[in-house]
């Protein structure tokens, strides 16, 4: 490599040389640059992590078992629906040719 002090190199540096004022200005500002508060510096990353955590919790949490509101039981061809509150329903697919809906629903009160 050519020596760094070749005439054209020196000329190049002279042409680009900063003024003493500019040097002083830059030095002063660089040394006076405030230290960023760690809390503020980490704010974007912390926000992102919080959002991801919330999303993960919402998406991945196990579904809580729901309280049963009725039990359904089949006895032969008859379906018994026992709600916690309200009357018990008995559903029986009718086989009689005369039955219009093909289903017989018997409801009796008490819920028991």
């Amino acid at each position: 490599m050519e020596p760094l002090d070749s005439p054209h190199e020196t000329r190049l540096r002279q042409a680009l040389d900063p003024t003493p004022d500019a040097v002083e200005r830059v030095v002063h500002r660089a040394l006076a640059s405030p230290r960023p508060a760690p809390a503020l510096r980490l704010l974007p990353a912390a926000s992102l992590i919080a959002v991801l955590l919330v999303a993960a919790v919402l998406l991945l949490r196990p579904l809580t078992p729901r309280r049963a509101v009725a039990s359904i039981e089949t006895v032969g061809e008859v379906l018994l629906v026992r709600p916690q509150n309200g009357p018990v329903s008995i559903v029986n697919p009718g086989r009689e040719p005369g039955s219009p809906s093909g289903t017989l629903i018997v409801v009796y009160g008490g819920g028991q």
Partner: protein
Amino acid sequence: MELETTVRELTPQLLRYALGRTGDPALAEEVAQDALAALVQRWRRYGPPECPAAFVFAVARRRAFRLTFKRRLLFPLHLLLDGESPLPNPEERAVARTDLGRTLAALRRLSGQDREALLLVGVGELGPAEGARVLGISVSALKMRVHRARQRLLKILEERDGTAGLASRDEAAPSSRSHA
């Protein structure tokens, strides 16, 4: 090694490099200041880096790239919003006629890689090992780029001036280098 001494030593080199890189004294100051501020913060928090010069030039290089890219990107918007003419204004024309303007114009004619290598080693006065480290290339590759850039720059300046090159212009205009 003391922080303030290091900053003071690196500042002129960094300003020269940044001016050659951006072509704009105000932008060069911003680049140098950002790079040095990064060094100051790094130093205060974790102690001095292994090579402060390489550290600060690597930051300046990235910062200069971002700022010049941003300026080019926003240039059409400035034209529209501020109604500025794309032609150089009288001040810019005056600067272009100075030694600095001619030097910057000559530098712009180099390829990006060669210009970067020349600015780091020839203008920023980084050693070959530090320059290679900043550019992420081998020392021999850096030397090759610098050599090529010097040859090309000399040729450009000879063509432009019709003289024997920059060396002969030293005598003609020794004090025309103020830009800030």
